[in-house]
């Protein structure tokens, strides 16, 4: 909290001192709206919700897989789903099972789940994508506890390597959340990482979110985003690429990647070798794009001190990712001096946490 005994200084810009003193005078306990604020990380593979828990500074997190599977309708199946509280709805002669339960069903039926999100955006190739994402949001946050409860949801940056935009995706989600009584707004995923992890640095530095569908990058100075972009390479891209060169199924690749991959160790087999190659490719692409983006922009403030890079997201979780990133960074003549590369405290929740901080700020 704020050290209330310290006066800022004797003589200064009156607006700044006033701003500081307003913070000093602000009540410690925030309003109900702020306390009920919600942060949502809508990623390619998961949706993570963050909200304030009971107790000082405690936060609660909930997540659901962004996945679904269609099974033929039968009353028996429907009862099983109801009894096990598995999210589903009936569509014509099918039952659409979505969220975490979809994976259970996919395993039972020995098939793959389908995705309502692709490359960080609503999947245009799936007719039910919007309904499923609405269903997941509805199940986790049925309605706003108070009218205009602030809610921030993450959106990706505009992809550097694909001709697409995020306008439709953002508008659909915002409209749905507003209809539920929230005062919603979007936050760039990289910026959310900065809000979550760079408080000590006054929100100055790079936030990099390496997710399933894409990697999002934001460079912020004093909480002002200067560069935001994304690349459409992420965990799914690595899975696809490795599966195709090793002739394995994606599920097995994903299992090895999530459970035993160590990027610091020598590969034990062909799959691990391929995983390391494609991880290197992803990291190099990411750093090269960061470098090019900085060189192409004219609005970077002159930063006196070196700035940090925070890595987050499920794709950044394997052991050695940070070290590989550091090594690749040394290979290029990066235009900004970097103080450190570090992993987010909780890579899977950092985006939702940052979105929650942004929502509380809005409240």
């Amino acid at each position: 909290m704020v050290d209330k005994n310290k006066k800022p200084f004797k003589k200064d810009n009156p607006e700044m001192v006033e701003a500081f003193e307003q913070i000093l005078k602000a009540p410690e306990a925030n309003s109900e709206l702020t306390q009920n604020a919600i942060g949502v990380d809508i990623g390619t593979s998961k949706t993570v919700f963050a909200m304030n828990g009971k107790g000082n500074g405690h936060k609660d997190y909930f997540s659901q897989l962004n996945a679904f599977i269609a099974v033929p309708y039968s009353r028996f199946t429907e009862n099983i789903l109801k009894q096990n509280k598995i999210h589903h709805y009936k569509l014509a002669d099918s039952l659409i099972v979505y969220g975490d339960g979809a994976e259970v069903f996919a395993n039972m039926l020995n098939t793959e789940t389908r995705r309502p999100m692709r490359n960080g955006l609503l999947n245009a190739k799936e007719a039910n994508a919007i309904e499923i994402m609405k269903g997941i949001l509805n199940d986790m946050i049925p309605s706003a506890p108070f009218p205009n409860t602030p809610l921030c949801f993450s959106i990706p940056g505009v992809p550097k390597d694909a001709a697409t935009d995020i306008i439709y995706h953002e508008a659909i989600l915002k409209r749905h959340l507003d209809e539920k009584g929230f005062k919603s707004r979007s936050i760039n995923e990289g910026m959310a990482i900065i809000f979550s992890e760079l408080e000590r640095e006054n929100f100055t530095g790079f936030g990099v979110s390496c997710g399933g569908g894409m990697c999002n990058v934001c460079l912020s100075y004093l909480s002002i985003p200067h560069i935001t972009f994304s690349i459409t390479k992420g965990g799914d891209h690595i899975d696809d690429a490795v599966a195709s060169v090793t002739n394995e199924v994606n599920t097995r690749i994903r299992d090895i990647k999530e459970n035993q991959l160590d990027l610091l160790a020598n590969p034990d087999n062909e799959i691990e070798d391929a995983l390391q190659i494609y991880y290197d490719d992803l990291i190099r692409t990411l750093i090269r794009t960061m470098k090019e983006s900085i060189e192409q922009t004219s609005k970077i403030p002159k930063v006196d001190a070196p700035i940090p890079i925070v890595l987050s997201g499920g794709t950044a979780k394997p052991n050695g990712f940070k070290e590989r990133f550091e090594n690749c960074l040394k290979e290029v003549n990066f235009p900004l001096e970097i103080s450190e590369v570090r992993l987010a405290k909780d890579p899977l929740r950092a985006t939702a946490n940052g979105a929650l901080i942004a929502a509380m700020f809005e409240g």
Partner: protein
Amino acid sequence: MAELFEPEKLPPKSYRLRIEKLAEQITDPVQKLKFLNKALADYNREKDQQIEFVELPMGNGRRRTFFMVILGLAALAGGVGAFVAFSQGKIKLTIARHFQTRTEQMVYHPMADTTIETAAIEPLPEKGPEVHQPETAVFPEYPDTLVWMIEKTNESEYYSNRLRIFTSQTIENIPRNYQQIPLAATDPPQTPGMTDKVAGILFHASESDIYAFQPEMTQSIKEYSRLLIRYIREKKAYHYFIDRFGQVYRLVREDHAAFHAGNSIWTDTESIYLDLNHAFIGICFEGKDFKNNHRRKGRTNGNGNSTHIVPMDKSSISETQLRSGKELTDWLRVKYGIPQGNCVPHCLVSVNPYDLLIGHHLDLSYDFPFDMFGLSNKYQERIPAITEFGFSYNNYFTEIMKGRIWPGIALSEEDLKKRADERKMPLKEYRRLLNNQFKKLFEQQKGRNHTKIES
């Protein structure tokens, strides 16, 4: 693309540097964002040309260092103070009083790489009421060692005596508030004094099913503990829970009541405690003291209590759990100034107010390691329910406790008889007099108490 701020509104470098210095003093991310937003939005370029900057009294980095030094000095001073006090044979540390004001200052912890609260050093308590039954007390009434918080995160608290409390599952109940009844009161006080003071600690056993404590059962043990915690939270049953691995969880806020004590009686030399849900903190050990005796199945004592339980050969509560319990008890005693006489197992306070019988609940009714906890052996001391209110016990109790009847019961009965003789009253009549006094207090308590009486 949503952006919170417009980049083109960025002020010049000198102004930005000043903002940075001020922002460093705020550690709450939302507050810091608000400040940055306001400071940047309010920026006035014309006025900024005339700014004269003056150095901050102390920057954040220097303040961290300052705090770490202060903490180091405090620890050093605490150690020296304790040594001096010990060497003089009187253990009362006064150094802690310099730190009586809890600081909320946040500092950066170099080891944890996380923001934590600085140590909230609990002062040693002022001397409180002397505890009843002093003749059996062989341990100091008040703790003689400081315990203070050294780290706090969103998930846990860590204390100087190795105690770690997991705090993320803490829930609220109803604020602690109970009637303070003076010990001398034979009738209900006319002007009841309400208080929220923590007067003591009650130890409980969950008496839940237990898995064998073996490596291959780890997942089952953990899962059972998780379910038990969920149940306790639903029922708001205990303030603290210590699982089979000795992990300590705070489940109900300390400044709130928990429904752990049921109908119960305890006294110290100043007060009678009838509402221990509010007055005492409940610590529950996951474990079992009793098992089913299938040969006697179905027999009850008339109150619905079945007699088909028998004490186990050895309590399932492990040394690891007891060590955690001791650390927790030490810290609570320092924090709230709890005398050792007010730290008791549930069995010794639990009563049936209608039959006027002791031992309604029997958790921890044998083998509780009082010595290890630095407490006098309460099994051997007088039972306040008997001495103050003439409670007794029946065959049901003796049958279950066969061979393990607390010596304190005989002592209490002797005491009761002696006092009856002094008043030249038959014991039966004197007991009835005390029973009636209890009934008056109990009725008043019931009327006043908005909380759940039965746990």
